[in-house]
């Protein structure tokens, strides 16, 4: 275990890392959509206006 290892193909691990990749992309897209959908309204509620807010 202490020596250097060359990564070998392991479908199970690849699927595990793939699942994290897919989750990251879905979260990016999902939260992006949510931000566009409720962001301005949320800012109006919190700050009282959104025109000057990015």
């Amino acid at each position, binding site marked *: *275990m*202490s*020596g*250097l*290892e060359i*990564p*070998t193909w*392991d479908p*199970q*691990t*690849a*699927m*595990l*890392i793939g*699942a*994290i*990749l897919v*989750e*990251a*992309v879905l*979260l*990016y897209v999902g*939260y*992006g959509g949510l*931000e566009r959908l409720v962001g301005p309204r949320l*800012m109006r509620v*919190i*700050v*009282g*206006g959104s*025109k*000057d*807010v*990015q």
Partner: protein
Amino acid sequence: MFSNLIGVVDTSPEMLALFVGFGLVVGLLFGFFGMGGSFLVTPALLMLGYPASVAVGSGMAFVFGTAVIATLKHHDLGQVDYKLGAIMIAGTTVGIEVGRASVFYLEALGLADGIISVVYVFLLGGIGLMITREALSNDSDGGIDHDAAADEDLSEYEIPDIAKRIQETVRIPPMVTLRGDVHVSAWVITAVAFSTGVLSGFLGVGGGFIRMPAMIYAIGVPTPVAVGTDLFEIVFSGGIGSYLYGQSGGVDLGIVAPLLFGSALGARIGSAATAVVDADDIKVYFGGMLLAGSVAVGIGEIGTYLGNETLETLGLVLVIGAAVVVAAAIVFTTLRSLRASRGRVSATVD
């Protein structure tokens, strides 16, 4: 894979809520400062009683997911030097493997938890001291404002003196020309990549908080290029590191999935906050958080050594508490700035 998915379901609701909340805090810090945040995950997992390989492996998988999200956001900004990225990836990959092998070697000797924690204490403490000192003297940039960085011309960035000295002293061929007209030996880049890779693999962190200053101060690349290239690289290094840990059963989806769920939202809030708040305003809190983190890991380790559960709990509370306080300071300062700005607009209109 399926056992990992079952692992998510098996995680208790309290732990899921804790991970989502902690992810939110870590994401907020990452989004705001552009670095520093992910390194809190591994010590927190260690203090929660996870084995070192799971704490480091899951920490690295979390970094990978966060980097994918951050890279997607910065993809369009054109801040990536692919030549630099390719050399960095090669050097970091070997470094990560050396660091990872060290963890398993030390784990076999029963020393992994202690040594990883000690390295954390010195690293967090050292960087925390440096940032706090800079913040108090107010003469430099402790965090990275991604959006502001994108607006500046690369030629406007001055190369730090130490980087100039390295570029002039180490002229071993092949020499490489990077974006921003930087000429540097490929060996300097490889050395930086390897050493930060070792730390990355050893500590289970993306290494951005070490690599970004290293790219700026040792290689001399402009800050925006360092940011973009770093994110590009973390996707690869984090992916490979997670894969290697995953093969050894070190990646727990029951930890990574909820952390990522929270951090993706936190990163958006933190990133948006950079458009409103000057990072200098709360940079000192960031340095303080790193210092508190190093003290917390130290206290936790002493507690483990003495078998004192109260000290272990105190360490965990400190490390999470420090992160929560800084995240709350970001949200508070952002809201205050927004309200002040709104007030000024209303007064002008009146």
